[in-house]
């Protein structure tokens, strides 16, 4: 497999995942704001913070309101992580690698891109936001389904797995971090009520609500949700599951020693959570370290497979 193609496939998988994650995040946020207990005020602006995009946001907008945040997250082409930017990058990457993915991939991506561009205002305005975001999520799932159903499990597929799971693990840590930071804001008596709304929405943003119910079998609490999303070995969006998927993928590729080492290091990183009191600043530091580890992992992937050194490989 060509190094250049491997790189583009890896990034394509990351961009598909990113599009779906943004849509999920906005969708759940939208839903949560209506359910908040009286007196609790949570700003849309937190979405910008989750994605570490505050600087870029301020270059573009003065007011941190719903409309600007949604414009920024969905439409803005100066924001490289907006839905439209991600779709554009996805399209460019697949356009130059369409020879290695199932033929219909290109068609589906075009469809999704055309749909998103033509209907983006529905995502920004409230009335049709839900169905717009749903369509985006379904579009991503269709593409992932096509890949799962028709791609040979060769090297190309391993790069899809690496990209998808890296992006997914990263997003799960960000969502957890955002929730914890909200809970840590001084707010006295409403915290209990907020916690219940917030943690169930966190699960829903990952499509994990029912799974959590079936697996954990007790009421929803911050500690249990955090543990579930970090460590559950079966649900496909938990950090632990993502790392395991990457481990399997790396083992099927040549020259992956450095990547393997970093994944194993990440898997060993652990944080003891016994009650919701443990979800404190130290926990946020831990999540931050995880994110730094994930960035290092992406660097390792690039060095091992994409920057070709003919002396060494020959």
């Amino acid at each position, binding site marked *: 497999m*060509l190094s250049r193609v491997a790189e583009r496939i890896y990034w394509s998988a990351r961009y598909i995942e990113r599009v779906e994650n943004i849509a999920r995040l906005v969708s759940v946020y939208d839903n949560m704001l209506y359910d908040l207990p009286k007196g609790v005020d949570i700003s849309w602006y937190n979405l910008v913070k989750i994605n570490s995009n505050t600087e870029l946001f301020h270059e573009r907008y003065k007011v941190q309101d719903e409309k600007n945040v949604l414009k920024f997250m969905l439409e803005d082409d100066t924001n490289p992580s907006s839905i439209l930017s991600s779709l554009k990058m996805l399209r460019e990457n697949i356009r130059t690698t369409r020879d290695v993915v199932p033929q219909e991939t290109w068609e589906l991506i075009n469809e999704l891109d055309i749909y998103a561009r033509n209907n983006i205002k529905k995502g920004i305005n409230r009335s049709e936001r839900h169905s717009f975001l749903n369509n985006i999520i379904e579009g991503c799932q269709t593409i992932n389904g096509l890949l799962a159903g028709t791609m040979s499990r060769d090297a190309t597929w391993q790069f899809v797995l690496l990209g998808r799971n890296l992006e997914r693990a990263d997003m799960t840590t960000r969502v957890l971090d955002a929730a914890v930071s909200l809970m840590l804001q001084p707010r006295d008596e409403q915290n209990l009520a907020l916690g219940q709304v917030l943690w169930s929405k966190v699960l829903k943003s990952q499509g994990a609500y029912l799974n959590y119910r079936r697996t954990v079998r007790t009421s929803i609490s911050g500690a249990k949700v955090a543990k579930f999303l970090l460590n559950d070995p079966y649900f496909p969006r938990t950090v632990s599951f993502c790392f395991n998927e990457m481990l399997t993928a790396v083992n099927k590729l040549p020259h992956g020693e450095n990547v393997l080492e970093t994944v194993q290091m990440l898997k060993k990183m652990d944080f003891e959570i016994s009650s919701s009191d443990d979800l404190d600043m130290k926990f946020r530091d831990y999540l931050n370290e995880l994110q730094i580890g994930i960035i290092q992992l992406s660097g390792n992937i690039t060095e091992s497979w994409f920057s070709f050194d003919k002396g060494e490989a020959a």
Partner: protein
Amino acid sequence: MEINWTDYNSNNFFDELITEEQSPRAPSEKLVNYLSSLDVEELEKRRLMAEATIQEMGVSFTVYTEEGNIDRAWPFDIIPRTISASEWKVAETGLKQRLKALNLFIDDLYHDQNVIQDGIIPEHIIKDSKNFRPECVGISPPFGVWAHICGTDLVRAGDGQFYVLEDNLRVPSGVSYMLENRAITKRVLPELFENDNILPVDDYTSKLFDMLAALSPRDNEVPEIVVLTPGIFNSAYFEHAFLAQQMGAELVEGSDLFVGEDDCVYMKTIAGPERVDVIYRRIDDLFIDPEAFDPNSVLGVPGLMRAWQKGNVALANAPGAGVADDKVVYAYVPELIKYYLDEEPILANVETFLCEDPEQQEYVLANLDKLVVKPANESGGYGMLVGPHSTKKDQALFAELIKSNPRNYIAQPTLKLSTSPTLIGKGQIEPRHLDLRPFILQSKDTYVTTGGLTRVAMKKGSLVVNSSQGGGSKDTWIVDLEAE
């Protein structure tokens, strides 16, 4: 309301679908009857469906403009153009004959040049050709074939006969559009494929693969074949990706390849270097190797010519094949067929005036308002003069160009290009001029596409069909009337 075919008038041009008596020709009978049965709304629905399909399939090509490159959707007309299978059989034999002779000619030029010794073609034509590559002299590619993929433009003139307009032997493009046009038409007019005996076109990519595989210098079971593209900004990138995907070959850019110390070509893969056997290159000769040709080329692979000369890698088309893709050489092709094959040409050339001949030049200069003047070595419809559609100023400019470089210009009578009904607005059908580009493959065997790419001049009265100049295309149906 249905389309009114009685108003359809091709104004004394040969029409592919409709006779002078306003009735359908035999191969188009079912098609025309079916279209007549659709009301205007239904026809419009089909047209919109085609448009949406093209967008979704992402069929596009790039147009170079001063404002930058635009990726445009492929302009497509839903009404197919039909040709009977028996008529096509003759054209097919003629195309094979022609490419066979051209390859013998190229091989001769890079070896003994008997064709010049025997006085068939003047030496200076070859010496002055921009596409003659001294680096290729003495090289013997497999099967003696240099032009493995040829796109030959056919036109039908007023008499209804096919004529060869030009041979494209360098990096002809368009075949993917031929295949996509069929895919779109199957979605838009599915009913017709049930009832009509339309010959399939989709074996092209497997034939292309077989042709390329036969060139492999190694005796390995699975030769490593790659398609070399200049990259995403090339107007035919869509096609490069399409062909690579359909053949299961790697699509590579110059920077993905390197030539090792053993003079073999390798590609850079995640597992290290992997040897390449056959390169279907979609880059012009002069850019394929900065060591041998243009040192500034970043598209090519340093050392590629060396690897090819040593026979360690096959290049299709071979470098230097373009020497026969010269509009002056074109004028000699009928003679070349007689010389090399001792056969009469099956397909005729269009009458051609060589401006380097003083007498012919005089005629050309006196008739610029009636002739089409073409530079010998351009493609894509650039830099030509269509006499009847030109201004006095254009003609004066071309007179100067011809006088300053007569070797570089030829002229042909303005052809009465055939027309075919084309949907130009809701329920509105008008004749538009068209041509046909079949693709011919040659290595161990020879193969011709079933039909080819029909290109249509979408502007009323226009004779320029190139997609870079506002042309569109149609599906081409070879209809087997005897099978019914």
